[in-house]
């Protein structure tokens, strides 16, 4: 078993590599930031003109959904994309030539990507709050809801990362899922009125429930007791556990299968 004390060292190594890589492509990140700084306020203006009154509360609800979507899908795209890219370039095999378990390496990579994306999303979020002049404050329940949502998405990331070692085309499928998820997670427009459809999406898509709960805590300012007694925290906790377990199992099986197929390197 690997010494747990090595985890911070490995995390820092991954973080350093990721930051160096990000710096090399910094223009891409900056242009994406610029794009949303223009596109999101424009979307809000469009919604306003269509609905004849899209007030600060609705805008804040949309912004919360959008930021969670941006953070989570960004994390998924970056992690699965890196597996496909590195398998084609040959670095994935070199990375796997270590006594550290592939699951540990990949989990650290997801954590690193999340850390970087969290910084990017925070900057974007703060800028949009200022531009749109929205009343925005964080609170404890929101932080916990966010953590549980991220854990569920990390589970999906583990599964997709594992599958990317076997199926190199998963990268493009993730791209499609990412775009579709704007709709079925209710990232921009809340889906609460969809009844059974919303209930289904809540349980199946890891972001949908999280976004809804975050809106409840940050916009409607629902506190701990309500979240506890209406089953939201329990539900999100169970969801995170299920997705993380499934993700871990899929990753381990996929790695083994990639070793069988010899698909860790496809250059």
């Amino acid at each position: 078993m690997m010494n747990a004390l090595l985890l911070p060292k490995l995390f820092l190594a991954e973080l350093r590599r990721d930051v160096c890589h990000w710096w090399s492509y910094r223009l891409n990140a900056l242009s994406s930031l610029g794009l949303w700084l223009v596109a999101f306020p424009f979307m809000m203006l469009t919604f306003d003109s269509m609905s004849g009154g899209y007030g600060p509360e609705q805008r804040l609800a949309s912004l919360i959904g959008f930021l969670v979507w941006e953070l989570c899908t960004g994390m998924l795209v970056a992690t699965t994309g890196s597996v496909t890219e590195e398998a084609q370039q040959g670095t994935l095999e070199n990375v796997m030539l270590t006594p550290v378990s592939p699951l540990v390496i990949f989990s650290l990579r997801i954590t690193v990507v999340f850390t970087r994306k969290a910084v990017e999303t925070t900057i974007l979020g703060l800028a949009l709050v200022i531009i749109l002049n929205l009343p925005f404050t964080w609170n404890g329940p929101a932080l916990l809801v966010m953590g549980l949502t991220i854990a569920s998405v990390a589970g999906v990331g583990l599964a997709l990362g594992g599958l990317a070692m076997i199926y190199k085309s998963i990268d493009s499928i993730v791209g499609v899922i990412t775009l579709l998820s704007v709709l079925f997670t209710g990232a921009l427009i809340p889906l609460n009125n969809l009844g059974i459809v919303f209930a289904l999406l809540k349980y199946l898509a890891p972001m949908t429930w999280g976004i809804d709960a975050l809106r409840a805590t940050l916009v409607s300012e629902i506190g701990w007791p309500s979240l506890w007694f209406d089953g939201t925290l329990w539900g999100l906790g169970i969801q995170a556990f299920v997705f993380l377990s499934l993700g871990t199992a899929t990753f381990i099986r996929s790695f083994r299968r990639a070793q069988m197929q010899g698909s860790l390197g496809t250059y």
Partner: protein
Amino acid sequence: MNNQPFIQVSEVTKRYPRAENPAVNGVSLSLHPGETLALLGPNGAGKTTTVKMVAGLVLPTSGTIHVMGHDMVLARAKGVRHIGAVLEGARNLYWRLSALENLRYFGNLRLVPRRELFHRIEELLALFGLEAHKHQEVRQFSRGMQQKLAIAAALLHDPKILLLDEPTLGLDVQAAKQLEATIAQLTQEQEKAILLTSHMMPLAEKLADRIFVIHKGRKVASDATRSLLERYNTHQDIAEIQVAGQMTQVLIAQLQQAFGGITAIPNANTTMLRWPGSEQTQLIQLLQFLDEQDQAILDIGRRQASLEEVFLSLTGMEQPNE
């Protein structure tokens, strides 16, 4: 040499899903401390699959692989500690990162203690003559420099075993020679056990203590390099006859029909006839035949087969035109 092999491959077969034939079929080999073993074979022979199975990156369908006594299927993490590898892909490293950042990253990943890592990086950069370029991004490196850095990265944790899959692939002659000298230095000074695959026969001939020829996934020959050459030299002396002018295809066909195994290699103003394993009397018959066909013989010679020709003969492949 020590009797305990660093690598022990026993009756290993690898059949990829949906592949018609096994990539590796019942191969057994061993690598001992301080030894260099060259795995030779044409494209698709199973060399890379064998190396990747030794590294634990590909699982065998049957058979066992032990590295320093650790089963690479059941205890991969323990075995891989002793392995440094440069695999076939041209991009073993992160091209957008500097040489130093690459070495730092892979050193940490291979669990080299922090204090040691700094010293080790400096040592390896000096060994490969890359100190002046350590802050440069790898994508700005020449192919030779990239390959040297890839080997440096493989040596960070001071492994006992080095796996080199086609280390000179894509390198120009000068870079290949430099790399050859570096590999020789690693075996002589650092006593690494090296398993290398290559298409470059002179590289294998110079560096390898033993040669393992693999073709269509199966072992074709395995012996000490000198013994292999000597063994095949006795059977494979090559007669070379240089004839003036370019021979017609009809005449070449007649020659090949009458004298089995002969090859004609057209050059600018001459044709070189090569006949491996020909007896003296057969050679006289060939000369008579050429005389009857009014072919002017410029030169006749006999020489011993090179490893490349032994390899081509063993794998049943044809000598490429020069």
